[in-house]
């Protein structure tokens, strides 16, 4: 893991040296197409659900759930990691990246036990997201409470 990670960094550095701006452009292009496609799939699911009669809020939640479950299955099959190596932020920024960030470390650290391994490592990235998201929501809520009254 660390070995491949450092190899990747060395490789990235070499790529950057050889062709800095075009590498960044290609990374962005790949992120754009993969990220955009994931969002377009979400849009299709969402419009099917609202056509079936779900409210916009419920359709949003179910769309998120479908994307999350799909991403977790792909993670378990080892496919989401492959997508990530191709798409970079295109697979990290959508909600599917959040799901992957929960499932991948859970699978990887499973052998360290069901409590300290699987369950604890599940929140290595998701934990900070939830912590800062919660803090931000409390601040927004407080400001809204006082501005409103």
């Amino acid at each position: 893991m660390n070995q491949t990670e450092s190899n990747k960094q060395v490789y990235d550095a070499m790529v950057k040296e050889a062709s800095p701006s075009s590498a960044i452009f290609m990374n962005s292009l790949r992120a754009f197409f993969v990220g955009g496609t994931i969002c377009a799939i979400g849009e299709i699911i969402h419009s099917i659900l609202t056509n079936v009669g779900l409210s916009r809020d419920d359709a949003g939640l179910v769309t998120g759930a479908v994307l999350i479950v799909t991403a977790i299955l792909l993670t378990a099959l080892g496919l989401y990691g492959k997508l990530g190596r191709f798409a970079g932020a295109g697979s990290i920024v959508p909600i599917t990246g959040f799901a992957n960030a929960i499932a991948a470390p859970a699978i990887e650290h499973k052998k360290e036990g069901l409590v300290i391994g699987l369950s604890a490592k599940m929140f290595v990235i998701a934990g900070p997201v939830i912590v800062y998201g919660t803090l931000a929501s409390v601040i927004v809520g407080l400001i809204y409470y006082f501005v409103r009254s």
Partner: protein
Amino acid sequence: MNLFWAFVIGGLICVVGQLLIDLTKLTPARILVSFVVIGCILGGLGWYDRLVEFAGAGATVPLPGFGNVLARGVRRAVDERGLIGVVTGGFTAMAGGVTVAIVFGYLSALVSSPKAKE
């Protein structure tokens, strides 16, 4: 909603993330955290919902959309319960997504081996 704009706006939000990775050395985890917080702030100001009106899933599927859900949830909770809503709104709003991710993440880890990842 418009499929084209969902694709374009969703793609562009990911490009912002990619440029942050390539140009600033921010780790993916920090980008996820930043995007959720930014989405929550824009949502609190009521700006993010305008992007949602325009781009649909292109705005809701990327992580700033998750932050916006938190902001929307806390505002609704404050409307309903006042100060109590400040501490219940965010968590309530994320409950569905996070619970699905935990349940399926747990089950998938139970049935798959680390080897399958490579």
